[in-house]
């Protein structure tokens, strides 16, 4: 039993690992190819299967006028919009989640659960539904193609995630802790700030992580709502998807876009191992 079980387990884990890594390995290999190496059928190992070049990687630093893809500025735009959108969503979402978890709201037939569902239901809407109205609205306020406009949209995108995670989290934190803080002389804001918040860090980390993932990986809104000033990374990379797709620079750019979030994966794992997140995610 034991031996068979661990053999199967290691086999399964190894197989899945291969599946997870495979596209990255292929992308790494492809990023060193050129047109010839790509069109001659699948090749894998540089120097053995094909002659590696740095063409794909160089394209990342070149401007489009030299056939490059200039991803440095979009990269930092992405970082900024994701960070700002996540931060605002978490602040507002945490406050709202706290209210929904601790207080009772009644308005006609509407109860706390309905308000929570309203927040979460924003994620049900496919982006295409909102793209046009958003465009018209942002246009009216001259917020098209601005960081500000994009952040507004990201709030709609990310706040539901923050509310979802934080309501769950607060429901698991005994409310007696906040009550004690009130009894000990804190007004509700102080209680929130001095007692609830410091004890919600695991929840906030999880919410922040999810916001960052969903923000970083969004493509559609930034694609529709920006032109030249504020290009985000996925849009810049997809712009390589020309009628002649340069597989090599596309692969290199994809790898660059993945890199920062790999660090997030490390951080998440650390939190998991220390048990800090477990409570927050349950």
């Amino acid at each position, binding site marked *: 039993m034991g031996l068979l079980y661990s053999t199967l*387990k290691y086999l399964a*884990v190894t197989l*899945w*690992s291969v599946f*997870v*890594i495979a*596209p990255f390995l*292929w992308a790494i290999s*492809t990023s060193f190819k050129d047109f010839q190496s790509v*069109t001659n059928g*699948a090749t*894998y190992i540089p120097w053995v299967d094909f002659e590696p070049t740095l063409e794909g990687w160089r394209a990342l630093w070149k401007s489009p006028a030299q056939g490059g893809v200039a991803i440095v500025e979009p990269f930092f735009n992405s970082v900024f919009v994701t960070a700002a959108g996540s931060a605002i969503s978490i602040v*507002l979402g945490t*406050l*709202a989640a*706290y*209210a*929904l978890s*601790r*207080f*009772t709201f009644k308005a006609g037939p509407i109860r706390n659960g309905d308000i929570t569902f309203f*927040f979460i*239901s924003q*994620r*049900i*809407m*496919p*982006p*295409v539904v*909102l793209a*046009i*109205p958003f465009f018209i*609205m942002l246009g009216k306020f001259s917020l098209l193609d601005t960081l500000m406009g994009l952040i507004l949209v990201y*709030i*709609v995108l990310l*706040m539901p995630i923050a509310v979802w995670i934080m309501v*769950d989290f607060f429901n698991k934190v005994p409310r007696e802790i906040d009550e004690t803080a009130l009894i000990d002389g804190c*007004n*509700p*804001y102080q209680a929130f700030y001095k007692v609830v918040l410091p004890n919600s860090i695991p929840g906030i980390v999880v919410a922040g992580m999810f916001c960052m*993932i969903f923000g*970083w*990986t969004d*493509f*559609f809104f930034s694609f529709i709502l920006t032109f030249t000033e504020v290009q985000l990374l996925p849009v810049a*990379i997809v712009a390589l998807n020309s009628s002649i797709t340069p597989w090599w620079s596309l*692969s290199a*750019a*994809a790898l660059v*876009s*993945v890199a920062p*979030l790999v660090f*997030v*994966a*490390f951080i*998440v*794992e650390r939190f998991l*191992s220390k048990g800090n997140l*477990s409570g927050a*995610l349950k």
Partner: protein
Amino acid sequence: MNFKHKYMFLLPGLLVLLGILIFPIGFTVRLSLSSWDSFYPGLDFIGIENYIRLFTDDLRFWEAFGRLSMLSLTTVFLQYVIGFSLALMVWKDIVFQRFFRVLFLIPMMTTPVIMTVIWRTVFHESLGPVNDFFNLFGMNPLWLSSEILAKFTVILVEVWQWTPFMFLLLLAGLLSLPKEPYLAASIDGAGPIRTFVYVTFPLMAPISIGAIIIRLIEASKIMDTVYVLTSGGPGTSTETSSFYIFIKGLREFQFGYSAALSLTYLIIMIISFTIIAKILVKLMVRGN
């Protein structure tokens, strides 16, 4: 607890969200009653004509819905089963535990639209590595251009991308399980399978339900993958609802009609999710 201060917590978020959304939603409702298209951009009033067309003369929309249900239920089911298995496997007693955990999380961190471009090269039927391998056996599966395999490929990419999400939630759930029930189970002499069925699974039911619902919501928007991988083809065999709405809206610029599609879609989805959530709760918490 109930203070007047409660509104100060709820309202900032709620009002910001409502403030940002009230125009888009209102506008979409109005748009759905107009014939706005590429040629006549304007909010004329044509009553519920778009809705009539949608319910009487748009088989493709309903087919897309059926396809969406199939794709999202299949992918989420696979993600759940695989994610749960992986979480159980790296839960305890495994070498390189941290390595595996980090590795299993990574796909979720990548941008779907970008990774799908990579996947398209992987599954490229004549230049990609997958068929290079199958060629060894004299086979040449058409991953993107046969009706059935294209669906399979879309599912495969979705599973790759989002299984980590399930994995993360479920692993975190496992790590926070109380120890007492396991002690009791081992005293009762329950084997690993019985322990799983009677202890682990019931304890994991609430988090499982949450994870499945959230994944279903996200999976129902499946768009980037189809957009890059197959454009809904071959034929319409991978065309899902949101992609169909995208085609009607941003390709053909039938804004009025696509607004009607969107709202109908939204209402159906909200009802479906409510029902699915109820069913899941019944199914999974039945033991307790």
